């Protein structure tokens, strides 16, 4: 949480003025008991009605000035809290955008989303309340103590004992409950996850008739959350009663001491009233504070969750090179090994391969053989465990990541489009593209018909998750999106699985006519998709088994032959 406070800098004036004005308001409030004391000691004692009238007038004026201060303070507080959190939210979003693939794998989207939304809202509430009230309370407390000393220093000693005692209790409760609130939040996360999972898997759950088990599991998680909430509630609920008990006992002692001092003539009755009033003010303020602290505690827990995301190292951009010789080999792997989180077996093992500039290559192999891993390594999405990758002759570690990715067009396995027009989606890949160029890419991707059939063509709005498009349509638009940036390396990661064979064949034909300086890497499950490639790499269990042209592999690589057979039948061999 503490590290987040740097975002407060911009609002330092408001952040200081708001509590300062609040303090001013408190000062006016603290004068009230003195005024009341003088009403009793001077006005009532001497039956001076004009004095009473004057003093009550002062009370009214204090109320007006207090209001003025508060209003300005509230405005500053709102501005600071909202601004502070808006800045954190923007920074957090930016930070998440900069995280590496492995960090994103480890975190998962759902927790990042809660941190950007509900956790930040909690922090905003906390900051707002803190600025408005949290400083006010201690100030009232200490102010009341100082005023008590002004009234009578000996009787005021009661304050000196009471206040630290209360402070200790408040901090103890906070200290115990902050970690508990964190575990409540974690338990809530699990309930959210379970619900989301149930919604996504509804068909499978029902097909297996597992509804009751799922419900039982949910109830288990819900019960855990419930138990946590009740436990932390019990501790948080200690604050208020403890305050009431301690303050009232202190009041008893205070009145007793006051009585002794009045008895020997060192204090007036009105002054005892003033002391009593100060203690009461502390009571009221501390009860407010206790409620506030519960809120602030939650905010701190949320703030820590946010900070923990900030603490994850963003993707390192180690390289600076932004120009390469495009005639050099596009991709070269030298003894490359890689495992996803540094544990478990390597996803790929000691891979050596070379893809020449402008070549059209295919990567094939059974599921889990490491094809997608290789694709993820070329744009530097993950750092390799050992070995060396060269892109157009440069070590990938020396290349600027933005530059590296700008020369690669990738079509991922999962066809993801964003909410917005088709044109906007294309511009994600190439911001300055003309409509004409978009249409050219669409035609090549066999997506021209899709766009022609939609109302408004390029202005057709794709819904969230591309819900208003079929799987095949999404895939083709994703291919077009990769094409519009005119990449030097085009990677198709099994990106035609939802296309029927006729469309797939047309697509392949179109891609074979792509400009000569584009290197095309096709990953496919289908032998037909890659058999005309200049070079084919056959992978199995993370190891490069063989490479060569279709007719070479047919005779030399048993696995390749088998894959071919399964697809084309015996006659294909």
């Amino acid at each position, binding site marked *: 949480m503490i590290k987040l406070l740097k975002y407060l800098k911009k609002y330092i004036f408001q952040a200081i003025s708001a509590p300062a004005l609040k303090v001013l308001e408190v000062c006016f409030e603290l004068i009230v008991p003195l005024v009341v004391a003088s009403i*009793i000691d001077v006005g009532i004692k001497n039956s001076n009605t004009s004095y009473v009238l004057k003093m009550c007038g002062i009370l009214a004026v204090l109320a007006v000035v207090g209001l003025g201060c508060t209003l300005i303070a509230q405005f500053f507080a709102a501005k600071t809290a909202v601004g502070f959190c808006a800045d954190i939210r923007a920074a957090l979003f930016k930070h998440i955008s900069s995280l590496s693939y492995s960090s994103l794998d480890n975190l998962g989207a759902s927790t990042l989303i809660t941190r950007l939304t509900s956790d930040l809202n909690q922090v905003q509430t906390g900051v707002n309340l803190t600025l408005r009230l949290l400083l006010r309370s201690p100030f009232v407390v200490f102010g009341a103590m100082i005023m008590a000393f002004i009234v009578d220093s000996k009787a005021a000693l009661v304050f000196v004992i009471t206040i630290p005692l209360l402070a200790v209790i408040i901090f103890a409760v906070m200290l115990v409950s902050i970690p508990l609130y964190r575990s409540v939040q974690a338990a809530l996360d699990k309930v959210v996850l379970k619900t989301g999972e149930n919604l996504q898997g509804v068909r499978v*759950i029902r097909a297996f008739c597992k509804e009751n088990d799922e419900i039982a599991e949910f109830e288990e998680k819900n019960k855990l959350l419930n138990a946590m909430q009740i436990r932390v509630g019990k501790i948080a609920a200690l604050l208020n009663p403890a305050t009431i008990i301690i303050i009232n006992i202190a009041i008893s002692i205070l009145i007793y001491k006051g009585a002794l001092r009045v008895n020997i003539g060192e204090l007036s009755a009105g002054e005892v009233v003033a002391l009593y009033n100060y203690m009461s003010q502390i009571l009221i303020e501390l009860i407010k504070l206790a409620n506030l602290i519960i809120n602030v505690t939650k905010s701190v827990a949320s703030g820590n969750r946010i900070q923990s995301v900030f603490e994850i190292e963003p993707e390192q951009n180690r390289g600076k090179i932004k120009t390469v010789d495009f005639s050099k080999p596009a991709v070269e792997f030298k003894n490359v090994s890689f495992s996803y989180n540094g544990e478990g077996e390597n996803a790929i093992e000691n891979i050596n391969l070379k893809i020449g500039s402008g070549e059209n290559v295919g990567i094939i192999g059974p599921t889990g053989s490491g094809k997608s891993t290789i694709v993820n390594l070329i744009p530097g999405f993950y750092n390799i465990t050992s070995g060396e990758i060269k892109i157009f002759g440069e070590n990938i570690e020396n290349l600027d990541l933005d530059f590296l990715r700008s020369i690669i067009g990738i079509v991922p396995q999962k066809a993801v489009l964003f909410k917005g027009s088709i044109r906007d989606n294309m511009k994600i890949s190439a911001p300055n593209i003309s409509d004409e160029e978009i249409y050219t890419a669409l035609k090549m991707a066999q997506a021209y018909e899709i766009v022609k059939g939609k109302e408004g063509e390029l202005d057709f709005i794709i819904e969230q998750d591309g819900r208003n498009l079929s799987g095949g349509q999404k895939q083709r638009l994703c291919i077009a999106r990769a094409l519009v940036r005119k990449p030097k390396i085009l990677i198709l990661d099994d990106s035609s699985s939802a296309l029927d064979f006729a469309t797939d064949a047309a697509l392949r034909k179109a891609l074979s006519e792509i400009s000569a300086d584009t290197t095309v890497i096709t990953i496919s499950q289908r032998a037909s998709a890659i058999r005309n490639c200049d070079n084919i790499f056959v992978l199995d269990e993370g190891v490069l088994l063989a490479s060569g042209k279709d007719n070479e592999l047919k005779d030399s690589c048993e696995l390749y032959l088998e894959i071919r057979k399964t697809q084309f039948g015996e006659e294909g061999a």
Partner: protein
Amino acid sequence: MAKMEKSVIKRVIKTVMPYKVLVLFSLVLTVLSVGLTLYIPVLAGRAIDSIKGFKDVDFESLYKCLIMISVCAVLAGVLQWIISVINNKIAYKTVRSLRNQAFAHLNKLPLSFIDSHPYGDILSRITADAEQFTDGLILGFSQFFNGIVTILITLVFMVMINPLISLVVVLLTPISLFIAKFIASRTHGFFKAQSDIRGEQTAYINEKIQNSKTVKAFSYEAESVKDFENINDKLRKVSVKAIFFSSLTNPSTRFVNNLIYAAVGLAGAFAVISNPDYLSVGGFVSFLAYANQYTKPFNEISGVLTELQNALVCAGRIFDLLDTEPVSSDEDLKELKNANGNVEINNVSFSYDKTKKLLQNLNLQVKSGQKIAIVGPTGCGKTTLINLLMRFYDVDSGSIKVEDFDIREITRKSLRESYGMVLQETWLKDATVKENIAYGNENATDEEIIAAAKAAHAHKFIKRLPNGYDTHISNSSGKLSVGERQLLCIARAMLSNPSMLILDEATSSIDTHTEQKVQSAFRRLMQNKTSFVVAHRLSTILDADLILVMKDGNIIEQGTHKELLKKGGFYTTLYNSQFAV
């Protein structure tokens, strides 16, 4: 609106009813605790009255009062803690049972509801709305009720001390309520705008964070941050207004209260001056304390009211979900036992959107042990047919029979248990690999699980995972590729050992080589059992007993592979296209 609120309030009360003993207990304790707390100023006043001046202190009565103050404070404190614990318990347990109900209900809702509502919306009802409702309940129980009791008891005490000055307080207090209401009505618009923009922002966050890999692949980070900041700035502007204006309530009412305090001071002081027997200085002091106490709850209540309103809206959203018609009950229906795989589709018509026709007058006879393949272009109705076979959706007209039972006349559970299903979208639970494979057959031994994984050709890659079969996987984790996930789904279906099998593009992301091995395992598994296979890849269906070629909701061709090829129709075109380059 008001009417809806009323029915929601009624329902909330009904939901809390199981805890009525606790509620009653809490109320009684609240009255006691508030009474004790409020009695303290009276005692303090008396104590002060016993301090008259120099050498004129009535120590005996002073002691009595002071001891009473301490005792009352301790009692009140203990009571307050008990009340908080009880209130927490009521609120949390109510919401817990509401959540359980909502989740259980969710599992009974028709798929048409779930398919047509955004996940996020249903999710937030069960999670965020329920949270908000809990907060509202606790606030309602503690502050709202406490406030009302405080006002009433204070009023009693004040009247007991001096009825006339009490009148001043009673007459002036409603002013602060009017002000609070005035401000609340003005801020409503800002709050509405705030939650609208917040919704827009959440949607943006959802989309971009869930697909952050795609964003990175296109180096689109900077652009998406810029878009995000635009929405963020809009939110910032409206939030400042909403928060500022809503925070005006408290200072404004406090201002009114301070004025009341001054008025009471004036009236009280005059009363003491004119007749000290009518009002003592101690009484005056207690009175001022009460004036403070009395107005404070009004302040709190006005603040709590907005929260409560919000909580009611949230409760209403949960109730709406609970009120959604579940699928019809099938408790009285027969169980489908020992299905052999005879399926009959008679004249079935169906469409999701009743204005657009989809399946029309479909007829099909499937005998036990047959392999039925369904092919055709995207959107032709293949997946729909499966939705109907599994009774995820009910037919609009016609009937589907299994073993001569209309599937609407047998329980859904017994129908679905007789099918094994593998879908194109690969859903896995947030659990270990082992638990996922054993999902349809909890009693499976480790050996059986490994055997199923081997049959599905998943064993090899599972072994490569960090913890093998005990590796924890979740639906969004990137540890597995789509193909690997499909293999796990297949292992899961194999282990459940169904009497009929549905494969909807089940192997679309698996390479043809592995696919063929998996197919042969399926073939062994499906000996003498019926299977329905939807596939783009025609190589997987060459041996089907019957191939249905669907287009625009109709079966346009049917027969075996050889028969269809001979025909030279749509199927032949499809088949040949896979060899074309």
